[in-house]
């Protein structure tokens, strides 16, 4: 699967050139040439139904493990999110969806038609009032409601930071278990879009990592988005669900149309390997996949920089999926086998999620490590508009770090 040699040298050349100062517009295919051809996406019904960890949530049918006869439909991420919201609203009369401009579909179309289908009492616009939205949602959830709120961009979550960290995360603890806001789910689009700049391309997941009581989930694909979102909505803890915004349209899979869930707090191994663990979540998964292709089969321009000895390395690619709590067992197990870890995330390096993971892994796997844990991340600057593609870790940087770590 990994060594499918679909990438011709042409898109790679253009890929590399876009990272230079050439003043050409990006190709019409989008910024991520690897997504359309990604092997990670489950583009057939058979593969979709074999998604690891998938659990059917059927109403009557107790024989819910059976995947035979299940229907799938081609969806992108925003359609999968909409599908999950629709199921949540159908099955739970106390579920309510609200946020800025969501009644007419939201800026990313994740709530298209929900207001018409479920009524404006249950799917409604809020004022532009992030702290208020979070507080309001917490109040509803404290009454036992299922509150599914949208913060229009993860970059706008900072006004709500106090409500989420001080109220949502702590209410169970500080009330000695009497109150909780388990019905709260905050959906928010995250990560870079290529030209979002300072206030539309940030990845704030790391800021919430110390807020025990919260869960943070980041899906990579339509199936993952639907299953993890339904799990998040039904999880008895408040969950911040961050949807990588560039994947809304570009990641397409066959998605089962029934109600199903995927486990929170569990990483998923996408590619097995024995020589190096490559850990990431969200959009960079596809950059990582591209990096693995580049490593195994470098184009002529890159070949001189990639020693023959590392080209046959078996790289284990893991999608962390849940940032809090994160699957330390799975990561440590993998690194204990491979001895090498490269962590990729879009947020800046200092005190990013990678820092916490690196620290825990060096503790658990110290004697197994053959190289220092490497982090490939955004730089410690704001996300710059014109230099966004320099900021975001791309396939070349990831591949370079893999080579460096393998040949340490």
């Amino acid at each position: 699967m990994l060594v499918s040699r679909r990438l011709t040298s042409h898109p790679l050349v253009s890929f590399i050139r876009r990272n230079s100062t050439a003043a050409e517009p990006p190709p019409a295919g989008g910024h991520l040439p690897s997504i359309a051809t990604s092997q990670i996406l489950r583009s057939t019904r058979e593969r979709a139904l074999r998604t690891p960890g998938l659990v059917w949530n059927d109403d009557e049918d107790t024989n819910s493990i059976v995947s035979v006869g299940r229907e799938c439909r081609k969806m992108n991420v925003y359609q999968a999110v909409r599908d999950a919201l629709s199921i949540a609203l159908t099955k739970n009369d106390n579920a309510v969806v609200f946020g800025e401009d969501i009644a007419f579909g939201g800026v990313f179309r994740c709530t298209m038609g929900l207001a018409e289908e479920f009524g404006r009492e249950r799917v409604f616009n809020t004022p532009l009032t992030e702290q208020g939205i979070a507080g309001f949602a917490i109040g509803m959830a404290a009454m036992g409601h299922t509150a599914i709120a949208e913060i229009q961009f993860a970059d706008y979550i900072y006004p709500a930071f106090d409500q989420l960290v001080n109220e949502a995360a702590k209410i169970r603890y500080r009330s000695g278990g009497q109150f909780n806001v388990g019905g709260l789910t905050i959906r928010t689009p995250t990560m870079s879009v290529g030209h979002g700049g300072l206030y539309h391309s940030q990845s704030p997941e790391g800021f919430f990592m110390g807020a025990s009581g919260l869960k943070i989930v980041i899906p990579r694909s339509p199936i993952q988005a639907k299953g993890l979102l339904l799990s998040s909505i039904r999880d008895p803890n408040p969950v911040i669900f961050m949807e990588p915004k560039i994947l809304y349209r570009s990641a397409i899979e066959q998605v089962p149309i029934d109600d199903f869930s995927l486990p929170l707090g569990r990483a998923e191994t996408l590619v097995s390997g024995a020589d190096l663990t490559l850990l990431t979540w969200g959009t960079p998964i596809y950059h990582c996949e591209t990096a693995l292709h580049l490593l195994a089969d470098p184009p002529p321009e890159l070949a001189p920089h990639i020693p023959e000895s590392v080209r046959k390395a078996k790289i284990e690619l893991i999608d962390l999926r849940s940032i809090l709590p994160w699957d330390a067992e799975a990561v440590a197990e993998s690194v204990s086998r491979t001895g090498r870890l490269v962590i990729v995330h879009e947020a800046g390096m200092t005190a990013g999620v990678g820092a916490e993971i690196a620290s825990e892994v060096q503790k658990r796997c110290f004697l197994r490590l053959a190289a220092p844990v490497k982090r490939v991340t955004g730089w410690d600057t704001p996300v710059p508009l014109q230099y966004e593609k320099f900021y975001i870790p791309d396939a070349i940087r990831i591949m370079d770090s893999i080579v460096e770590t393998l040949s340490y």
Partner: protein
Amino acid sequence: MASLARLRVSRRLPQLARGIQTSADTTQLQDAPPSESSQPFTVKLHEDSFRAHNCDKPELDVQVSKDQLLGWYKQMQTMRRMEMAADALYKAKLIRGFCHLAIGQEAVSVGLEAGITPEDRVITAYRCHPFAVLRGGSIKGVIGELLGRQVGMSHGKGGSMHIFTPSFFGGNGIVGAQVPVGAGIAFAQKYLEKDTATFALYGDGASNQGQVFEAFNMAKLWNLPCVFVCENNKYGMGTSAERSSSNTEYFTRGDKIPGLQVNGMDIIATKQAVEYARQWTVAEKKGPLLLEFVTYRYGGHSMSDPGTTYRTREEVQRMRSTQDPIRGLQRYIEEWGVASEQELKQLDKEAKATVDAAVEEAKASPEPLVKDLWTDIYYKGTEPPFMRGREREEIHHY
């Protein structure tokens, strides 16, 4: 800056003089109290007990009974005793951390409870101890929580600002954060078609927080049964209302939400205003309402604030001697022949005995178990596999 502030104060003084009446003892008896102690009789509030903004004032004629008056007296006296006990325990270093007392503001908490039903919801900030007890908690539970003991209402895991009952959504430590939460609670009440309201309390200091206005807007936009209650005790921490707020008429700050300013020192006025607000939001379904109780705190903002650096001792003394809510009620009771001084002294003794017994019980309760450090973070069974403890070696595995 100082001269500017002085100017402002002096300009406002005549307005205040014509404004709200905050004496605790200006309510007049209209007809002689009946001998039956549960029989209501009419009293008349001072005509300046209320100021209204885009709404009518409540009736000045109020029905009360002897039982009610004595009940309120006992509650107020007990609440004050409890806060005094907390004060003493804090000074004895048995209570640590942050602790905000409501001595002087008893007419608000007791008056609120008198005007609402058990099904209504209340949420407030950190000055929360009396509300927690009146909403179905216990003195033992509050003191126990302050002491960090198992018997505390949050099992000793919260502390002073973190006390809850099924109808009381807690004290909150972050200034103003409880106000949008209250709007959300009110939305759930409306959604569930319950004939109840949420009373979201905040102080004059919090009224300048952005999210308070966010909550106002949403509540009015969606016509939520939410009463925003501003307890104006004239100082937001160490800054007087005049120095912190461009508009100190807090009851007018809801934009399209009507407001009512209330003498927060006279329990009969506070109870009448709360009933009016409940009628407005629940029975008449007119949406949210602002209530501003003009009151006064005798102590500092918190235990670490002596409360005398930004106001004079004379000012505090004057408020205590002329506008004390408990003394005011005591005067009504004695003058109207509801009970004698001796009978009230007996109630005082009972209040003290109740509090003393609760304090002893709370002190006897053990501290939370070490294993409870890790409980109530996530829903049981959905925790992460492990969580770090107090030192390097201490790691809790779920």
